[in-house]
């Protein structure tokens, strides 16, 4: 019954194909086309040979791979406990904890890296261990959100039954929860791996000088040395390694998807025993400390001046004149508005495409797997190559889009799409097929049975995905930062510019702006869970009377 889940989502293939059209078109037009245009223009035989025969290439590839594997493994281990308590327990500050974790994940690395550096003991500064520690803290949110979103849908009765039969908490976790969680674990693992494998800012700030991932080397060749050809070769190499890893993980995710009767409503409860309370408190406080420390360091730096404490950075933030007659030309308020607009559009695009993509992936077999991997490609591809690809692809009518405002949110949506899909597909795949059978027995058409049984499970992961997509867009500093821009400065760019100039006031303002970005992100995430809690009620009815297995 291993692959029962996909067989059970029996939609007419016509419908599945129609669902898949949108996401595939988006992927082809805004990713595949620009990327291959650049490759076709830049790559030639001699550069391929040169690049691959250089020893440094393989050193960089090896370093990129091992640091990503280690970072991912540690993140997954550390992230299990917070994912568990967030999924299973109601405790004060729960939403805030998720919000703060997410803020850490999406804040621009130039900011978080600097804050992290301020916290690290000197002996760890600029070592690979500092890099890995930062990767773990920054990516905890992926574990908590993806695994947590899945975990809270797992029926609790099996755990309760095992507990009644005398199984220890540990046994319950290893024998029951862990196997059921595997699809979401490999989903989260794949995303964490993608992010750490393509790590850029964290390594540049926290690693020793000259420490390079493939992503950094592609950027360096393309922008600093003007060797676009060499950059293109490396970016293909980067993708090749990723394709293997992600392909493997996707297969694992499908193989381990077990049909369980997921429940649309949350089974969260307050802690009962003192032991439970201790455990939840310990994990919550520990996680909070891990992620609040860098945020606090950042906020504190916005109040630091040469002579001690000062609020000048904040009071002058919105003012055009920094000193009488001297203006900076950086408009933080405008940047915030731009960022929020971008985030709203990016989130809409991502949810729209993500919803249909998830339904198609869950319903289709092999083709769905291909689409799933395809959607992951943009985050695994070097940002500079996509940006430059767009520049030379969308440059002639009727595709003269390189100066269009919407190209930026579309680019953000492309990066956010896998998050929407991965949170959603895991839940969809595990919908108990017997539910649809039951509906069919009662006379529903396949499409109708699917609509009534499968679709209700969409809302919660989509809400989570929407918030993540918006948050990712707010902090995004990838491919779209390589598009040229006219007027549409976003928050991360404004922060980067402030931190890139001399003057203690400007530095403090940069951190003030970063604090605003963090607060905006946290409010966004907390706000969404509130909205969901309201809309969630409307959908509780459907699907909760499940057929017992």
């Amino acid at each position: 019954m291993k692959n029962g889940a996909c067989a059970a989502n029996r939609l007419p293939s016509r419908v599945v194909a129609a669902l898949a059209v949108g996401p595939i078109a988006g992927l082809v037009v805004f990713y595949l086309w620009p990327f291959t245009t650049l490759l076709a223009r830049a790559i030639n035989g001699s550069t391929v040979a040169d690049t691959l025969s250089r020893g440094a290439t393989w050193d960089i590839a090896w370093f990129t791979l091992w640091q990503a594997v280690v970072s991912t493994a540690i993140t997954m281990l550390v992230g299990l406990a917070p994912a568990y308590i967030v999924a299973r327990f109601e405790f004060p500050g729960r939403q805030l904890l998720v919000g703060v974790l997410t803020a850490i994940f999406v804040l621009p690395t130039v900011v978080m890296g600097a804050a992290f550096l301020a916290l690290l003991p000197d002996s760890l500064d600029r070592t690979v261990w500092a890099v890995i520690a930062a990767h773990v803290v920054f990516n905890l949110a992926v574990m908590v959100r993806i695994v947590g979103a899945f975990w809270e849908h797992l029926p609790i009765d099996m755990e309760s039954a095992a507990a009644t039969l005398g199984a220890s908490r540990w046994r319950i976790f290893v024998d029951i929860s862990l196997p059921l969680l595997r699809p979401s674990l490999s989903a989260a693992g794949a995303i964490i791996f993608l992010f750490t494998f393509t790590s850029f800012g964290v390594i540049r700030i926290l690693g020793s000088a000259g420490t390079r991932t493939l992503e950094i080397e592609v950027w360096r060749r393309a922008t600093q040395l003007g060797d676009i050809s060499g950059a293109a070769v490396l970016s293909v190499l980067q993708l090749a390694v990723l394709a293997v890893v992600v392909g493997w993980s996707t297969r694992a995710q499908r193989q381990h998807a077990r049909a369980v009767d997921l429940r649309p409503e949350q089974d969260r409860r307050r802690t009962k025993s003192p032991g439970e309370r201790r455990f939840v408190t310990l994990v919550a406080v520990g996680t909070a400390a891990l992620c609040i420390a860098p945020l606090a360091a950042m906020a504190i730096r916005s109040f630091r001046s040469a002579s001690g404490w000062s609020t000048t950075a904040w009071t002058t933030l919105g003012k055009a004149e920094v000193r009488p007659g001297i203006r900076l030309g950086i408009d933080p308020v405008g940047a915030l508005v731009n960022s929020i607009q971008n985030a709203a559009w990016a989130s809409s695009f991502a949810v729209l495409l993500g919803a249909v993509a998830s339904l198609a992936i869950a319903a289709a077999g092999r083709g769905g797997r291909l689409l799933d991997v395809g959607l992951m490609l943009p985050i695994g591809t070097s940002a500079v190559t996509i940006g430059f690809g767009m520049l030379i692809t969308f440059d002639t009518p009727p595709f003269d889009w390189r100066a269009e405002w919407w190209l930026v949110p579309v680019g953000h949506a492309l990066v956010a799409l896998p998050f929407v899909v991965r949170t959603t597909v895991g839940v969809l795949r595990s919908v108990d097929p017997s539910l649809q059978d039951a509906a069919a027995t009662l006379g529903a058409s396949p499409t109708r049975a699917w609509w009534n049984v499968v679709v209700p499970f969409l809302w919660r992961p989509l809400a989570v995905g929407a918030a993540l997509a918006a948050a990712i867009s707010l902090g995004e500093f990838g491919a779209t930062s390589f598009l040229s821009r006219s007027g549409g400065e976003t928050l991360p760019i404004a922060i980067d510019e402030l931190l890139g100039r001399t003057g203690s006031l400007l530095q403090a303002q940069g951190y003030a702006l970063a604090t605003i970005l963090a607060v905006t992100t946290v409010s966004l995430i907390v706000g969404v869970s509130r909205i969901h809690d309201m809309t969630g009620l409307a959908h509780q009815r459907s699907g909760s009377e499940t057929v017992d297995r």
Partner: protein
Amino acid sequence: MRTRPIIASALALGMIAAACASDSSDPIDPPTAAELPATAAELPATEPANTGPDTDQPAERFTTITLVTYDSFPQADTSINAALDAFTEQTSIGVELLVAGDTGTMLSKAALTVGNPEGDVMWGIDNTFLSRALNDGIFEQGVLFDPENVPAEFLALVPNGEALPVDFGDVCVNYDIGYFVENELDLPTSLQDLAAPAYRDLLVVQNPATSSPGLAFLLASIDEFGADGWQAYWQQLTDNGVQIVDSWTDAYYGSFTWAGGGDRPLVVSYGSSPPAEVIFADPSRDDAPTGVIESTCFRQIEFAGVLAGTDHPDEAAELVRFLGSEQFQAELALNLFVYPANSAVALPQEFEDFAVVPEMSRTLDPDLIDENRSDWIDEWSTLALG
């Protein structure tokens, strides 16, 4: 909080999409098509609305051209932008700014789009990138800029007149005055001094592979010790505990004693950093907390030119001439922290007081830089990063 309605609408859109998906064979288009025009109407408000010969412009030949710049060029509100507006009034040529990234990124993009450029004029290619720009043919040939009061040594870098020298600045070792006073330490006065035991573990520099001031400092050492001697110098620097970081921000705000609470009182930064420390100080101050070691300075000269393939070659040339004029050049110092190339322009008081224009600053032939940049950086990396 503005975020809620946005998320609500994002959710609503998603729901619409899912709803459409189940009973229509064309799930994507309807909601997207319905939503897009709404923002198309809203968004132009955030952009300068001068993309075409619009109604309220009386002039008969109003054209808007695009000035491509690096990312530290102010986008709006400053006196530099006011000067550009004045140009528009004088000539009926509108100027839209397009930010292309750091100088290297900007040049790579221009090289990729030669013949179909993103804009009409480019500002900010410096002498370390100049040869590549000229070899890639990003600038239109045979445009007359009529440079006035521009030093001959700057003009000599563009013998065919492809671009106009517009400003210059220096990359120099900066020092934290307070640290040297407190520790009763004499200032280093030469590059060689930096390798002396007295300054052990005191210097932080940037990686030339990833940072433009880092590259400038490497070039300064090549100028001083020659193509065969700089390696030995860097070996001494390494033995003397030089710290190497990836970017200017990391060095200045992370490691420099004055600005970041780091432990290095000597940092590679700009010749104009001391006046910037006064102008952007909090609380305000009337003396610079940092100084510059003149003999370490490497000169960067920036150029502006007409991009090859522009649709508006005449207007573009007129803009470049304006960029070299006294009216525009007078705004450079306080906005970009560089010196005007036009020597008839006076410097603002803060610059007179706190900035040093070194008598003699180092340079290297742009062709030599372009030819060797990659090899030098590789050699340096092996030597200094191990």
